């Protein structure tokens, strides 16, 4: 059914978001948690970790995702913390995607708990031929078959569909049409738009851009001057001109490896150059492994020299890891064992594969100190936290000062990237960095 004012060529995009996903799965399995404030988070016994998801009761008390557990306890005294069970979340995520895939083959996951669905063509073939009725059917099925709830946004582009799923929660469906988007979306704060992070928002405010409507009305050239390329993108997103397709099932296959590669601003001519770039890439790979709760025990490198000769080498290590120091160490050893410096190097990649969830038990090595490993891991976490708060350049390894142009490069993710979030946010941050 085409809504009045809709363009006949408009797509029908749904964005489905499982409400408080981790908490919902825990509450399904443990009914006692349903009527009390609870949060899924790191290890409460060890008195560290952060809130990954909180239920609505806890949220009403002021508990927010990303809070340290002790902070959550301060705002909500009787909160109950539950350790995460990622394998269960993955199982439920697969089930949800299984339901989506019965409606269309264009299902693009956005993390474990969110997906976009393009039902433009399939809607015509189904008995229920409009977005809202399919959204209602999906919502009902998720409730009946999985015992959790979703919020769904229905619109003609991915950005507005995502906005719709965030607009009303939990267990709600919001349709954003060409008739109502100016009332609903344009009046909302700019920070509600996907990819407008805290930093971008602060900058927008400086220019008097407070709402998404302001953003839509702003001169795209001005936004380009402020943010670089992303300025045009934000401008188009705000006006509902996002034409990004919803990827087909399989385009985002299950994560098999996490890797980053880069073509360097200048050719690498000696060991120091290579070590620096390997560290840079390893830090990024390790961070992404941790974000996605994986460890892996196959470390690989890819090298391309300035004669465009390329090769890859990989090595299985004793202990699966997500520690940047270890990944860099193994990658460096691989490089030293396999490259004889016949030509300068143009491009390098570092990859970790054979992934397992980070909670998988493993046999420790008698000759490798777990204490030292833990120190390295804690250092990584501390660095990640500093960078989250103060920007990437706030803390750097000493080796990066050997050549700041080389170490300041934008280590782009290669095609093993898990989902576009990190890439986009990274791009956003990098642009922000250049501004300062």
């Amino acid at each position, binding site marked *: 059914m085409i809504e009045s004012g809709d363009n006949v060529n408009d797509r029908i995009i749904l964005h489905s978001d499982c409400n408080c996903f981790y908490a919902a799965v825990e509450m*399904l*399995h443990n*009914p006692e948690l349903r009527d009390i404030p609870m949060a899924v988070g790191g290890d409460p016994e060890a008195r560290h970790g952060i809130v990954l998801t909180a239920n609505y009761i806890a949220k009403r008390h002021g508990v927010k995702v990303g809070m340290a557990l002790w902070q959550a306890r301060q705002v909500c005294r009787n909160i109950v913390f539950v350790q995460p069970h990622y*394998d269960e979340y993955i199982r*439920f995520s697969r*089930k949800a995607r299984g339901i989506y895939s019965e409606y269309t083959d264009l299902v693009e996951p956005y993390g474990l708990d969110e997906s976009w669905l393009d039902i433009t063509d399939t809607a015509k073939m189904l008995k229920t031929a409009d977005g809202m009725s399919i959204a209602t059917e999906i919502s009902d099925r998720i409730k009946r078959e999985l015992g959790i709830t979703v919020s769904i946004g229905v619109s003609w582009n991915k950005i507005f569909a995502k906005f719709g799923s965030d607009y009303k929660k939990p267990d709600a469906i919001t349709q954003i049409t060409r008739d109502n988007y100016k009332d609903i979306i344009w009046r909302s704060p700019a920070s509600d738009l996907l990819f407008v992070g805290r930093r971008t928002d602060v900058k927008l405010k400086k220019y008097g851009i407070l709402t998404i409507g302001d953003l839509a009305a702003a001169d795209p050239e001005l936004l380009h001057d402020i943010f670089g390329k992303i300025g045009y993108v934000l401008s188009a997103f705000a006006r509902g001109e996002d034409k990004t397709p919803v990827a087909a099932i399989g385009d985002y296959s299950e994560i098999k490896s996490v890797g980053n590669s880069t073509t360097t601003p200048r050719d690498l001519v000696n060991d120091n150059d290579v070590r620096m770039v390997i560290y840079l890439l390893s830090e990024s790979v390790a961070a992404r492994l941790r974000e996605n709760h994986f460890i892996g025990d196959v470390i690989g490198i890819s090298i391309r020299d300035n004669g465009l000769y390329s090769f890859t080498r990989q090595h299985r290590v004793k202990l699966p890891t997500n520690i940047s120091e270890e990944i860099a160490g193994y990658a460096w050893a691989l490089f030293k064992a396999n490259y004889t410096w016949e030509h300068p190097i143009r491009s390098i990649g570092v990859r970790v594969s054979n992934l397992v969830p980070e909670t998988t038990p493993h046999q420790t090595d008698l000759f490798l100190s777990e204490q030292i490993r833990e120190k390295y891991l804690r250092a990584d976490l501390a660095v990640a936290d500093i960078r989250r708060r103060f920007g990437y350049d706030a803390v750097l390894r000493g080796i990066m000062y050997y050549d700041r142009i080389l170490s300041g490069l934008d280590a782009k993710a290669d095609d093993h990237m898990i989902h576009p979030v990190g890439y986009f946010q990274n791009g956003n941050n990098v642009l922000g960095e250049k501004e300062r």
Partner: protein
Amino acid sequence: MAKRIGHKVYVDTIVKFSDEGKMRPLSIEWEDGRKYEITRVKNCVPGASRRAGGAGMLYTCVVDGKEIHLYYEDCPSGPKWFLESKA
């Protein structure tokens, strides 16, 4: 032996696997040790039990002329069968 967690009762279940890989529960053993034959499987659909707390395949079965809901839960710790307890 059956094991109860709240309203969720995990039960020992005898299952027949067809040569096509289909599963059909034949009998279950309740908490008191009594065995019940499943005379008919009326339906098998994905389903969640909010009361018991679990999700998987919901088998609507007939036992002693009464309809029961038997769930097959493919949880990461290994697949299990459970029933909702009314008590």
